[in-house]
């Protein structure tokens, strides 16, 4: 009897905590519309801090927090300090939608920086469009989208995929094998690649998808090796890259015999994959930790100072870092953080960023960005071997590429 009372007590305590949780409605009413009324301006940061995507997204949040801190030190925006409200998307798309709603409706933030996967963006998109609020999305993606309430600070396909193909073509790689994780970005990217190949005399020897989180690549490796391509175009995501490169390496494939061009492997992933396994393979991005600009030296130094000397910086982090600055600049230009005015002011804003000059394209709300191909070095960093020379105008629907006619319909 004594025993069961004790049990009862323990669980009752847990229950009370849970009920307290129900009642605890965080302060909701003090912020006025668009977060502009008080002494501070609230901005939302919405990334996965738990779950499978946390690996990648936490670092983007860190970069965004760094930018907020720097801007606040320099006097803030419109004379007010920025106050970040951080939420966890938990690697779960509906949670992203729920938290976006919370940030807009309850915290009344001026804007939200957030998302990584296409799925999280697609889940948030209706929330932002219906509530007429603003989202800054920092990751390269599959294009074919141009929401009036989203600014895309990562690359669209014509700033990453197509330059990657241009590079392979220049290298004389004519026979390509496509490997990707089974979701929207790789499938769309591969459609574009196939159209490009058809127009440029390249041959696609195979196209394989594996489920997200897949780790058994021996069969796929066999298929690739049997097809004998000149190069592999890799759109695998996350942990699958580790398994893929490890197993490819042990099957005897090297960067010399069969380079694998990746578009989702950045500095942070290299350690996990094992430098050994990926050294010499090319990647396509708009920014590397080694990119030689004055703004980058400052960014890398500041980031390491804040988060530790062993930390690396990568493209999505830089795009998130940029997003905060670009929004702040647009607010200054508009003289307000009010969404419609800020959107109107944003077009044409140009800033020198770590990746070089970044200009907001007012029409698509994407950025002009310079494409850069890099090679993975034995020290785990990436060295640029090719770039597009100048920032490329964003073209999310590939309207300016005649061969891409049937893609976006």
């Amino acid at each position, binding site marked *: 009897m004594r025993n069961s009372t004790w049990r009862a007590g323990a669980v009752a305590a847990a229950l009370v905590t849970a009920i307290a949780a129900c009642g605890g409605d965080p302060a909701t009413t003090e912020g006025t519309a668009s977060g502009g009324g008080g002494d501070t301006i609230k901005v939302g940061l919405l990334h996965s801090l738990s779950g499978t995507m946390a690996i990648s997204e936490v670092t983007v949040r860190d970069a965004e927090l760094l930018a907020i801190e720097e801007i606040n030190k320099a006097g803030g925006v419109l004379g007010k300090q920025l106050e970040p409200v951080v939420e966890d998307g938990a690697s779960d798309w509906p949670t992203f939608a729920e938290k976006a709603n919370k940030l807009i409706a309850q915290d009344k933030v001026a804007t939200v920086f957030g998302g990584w996967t296409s799925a999280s963006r697609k889940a948030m998109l209706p929330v932002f469009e219906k509530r007429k609020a603003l989202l800054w999305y920092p990751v390269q993606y599959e294009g074919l989208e141009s929401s009036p309430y989203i600014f895309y600070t990562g690359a669209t396909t014509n700033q990453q995929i197509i330059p990657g193909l241009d590079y392979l073509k220049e290298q004389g790689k004519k026979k390509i094998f496509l490997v990707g994780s089974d979701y929207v970005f790789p499938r769309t990217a591969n459609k574009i690649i196939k159209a490009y190949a058809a127009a440029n005399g390249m041959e696609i020897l195979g196209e394989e998808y*594996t489920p997200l989180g897949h*780790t058994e690549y021996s069969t796929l490796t066999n298929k690739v090796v049997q097809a004998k391509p000149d190069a592999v175009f890799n759109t695998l995501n996350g942990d699958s890259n580790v398994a893929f490169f490890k197993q490819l390496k042990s099957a005897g494939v090297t960067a010399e015999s069969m380079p694998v061009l990746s578009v989702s492997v950045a500095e942070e*992933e290299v350690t996990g994959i094992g430098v050994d396994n990926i050294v010499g393979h090319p990647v396509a991005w708009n920014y590397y930790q080694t990119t030689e600009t004055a703004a980058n030296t400052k960014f890398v130094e500041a980031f390491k100072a804040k988060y530790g000397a062993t930390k690396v910086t990568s493209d999505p982090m830089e795009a998130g870092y940029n997003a905060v600055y670009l929004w702040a600049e647009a607010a200054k230009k508009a003289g307000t953080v009010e969404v419609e005015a800020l959107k109107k002011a944003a077009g044409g804003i140009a800033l020198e960023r770590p990746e070089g000059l970044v200009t907001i394209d007012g029409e698509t709300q994407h950025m002009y960005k310079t494409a850069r191909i890099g090679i993975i070095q034995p020290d785990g960093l990436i060295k640029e071997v090719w770039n597009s020379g100048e920032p490329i105008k964003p073209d999310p629907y590939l309207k300016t590429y005649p061969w891409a006619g049937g893609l976006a319909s």
Partner: protein
Amino acid sequence: MVEGFLNQLPIGLSIGAVLLLIALGLTFTFGQMGVINMAHGEFIMAGAYTAFLLQDFAGRSAVLVALPVAFVVAGLMGLLLERLAIRHFYGRPLDTLLLTWGVSLVLQQVARDLFGAPNVQVLSPTWLQGAIGPMPYNRLFILALAVGSVVAIWLYMNRSAQGRRMQAVMQNRQLAATSGINTGRVDQRTFFIGSGLAGIAGVALTLIGPVGPTLGTYYIVDAFLVVVAGGLGQLRGAVIAAAALGLLNSYAEFWTNASLAKVIVFAAIIAFLQFRPQGLFVLRSRALT
């Protein structure tokens, strides 16, 4: 095409070897004690991190040193789990499933806090680089490890007094208890060995896959399917089931794709259970449930 087809045979066996390694420990904890240990995947993870940590001392050959160490580390984790929680749950297998799932969540978060969320780098020994035909050395190493583990377990079960006690408990717990076997002690030993095998699997997996906090979640469902198809606590069942599923997976993926292959394997298991609802091999029992 023909060469590709032939290559799939050893590839299928090597997939089977991985499946066998991750499932071997479960056939004991699940088979003998009816405990569905969802934290088995996290014991695998612990083995992988053991290899990661030992790199500082043993360098590139850490994998070899790590095998016995990981066995002990994961084994002790299993023992702790058994002593602290699971022993109160015998006869309630479904409750242990949920309990150990809670444990697995906590262990994942612990790993995240200790080692960080990103994957860590475990370098494989230089002498494991290279391949014979379609079989990389590291796959051969895993195959040898799987065979070695099976032989060791078979010897233990059939040639040692402890192992025979284990079999006795597995076949009839009450009878074993009344004939003077300390079943509690046997359970502890079984859990130690079962979990320790997960540790060994974890070390082996560093050769071919990612090493991160969520490592265990990638393998746990497959491991359970092998046990279900093989029959509870059946060594030969697990071996045959792992080999069969490995080959099926290998050829299904060769002819279709990785996504469809997984679905095909699942459908095959459901179909198989229509003929053998208790898996390949069954322990006979007269007890009415």
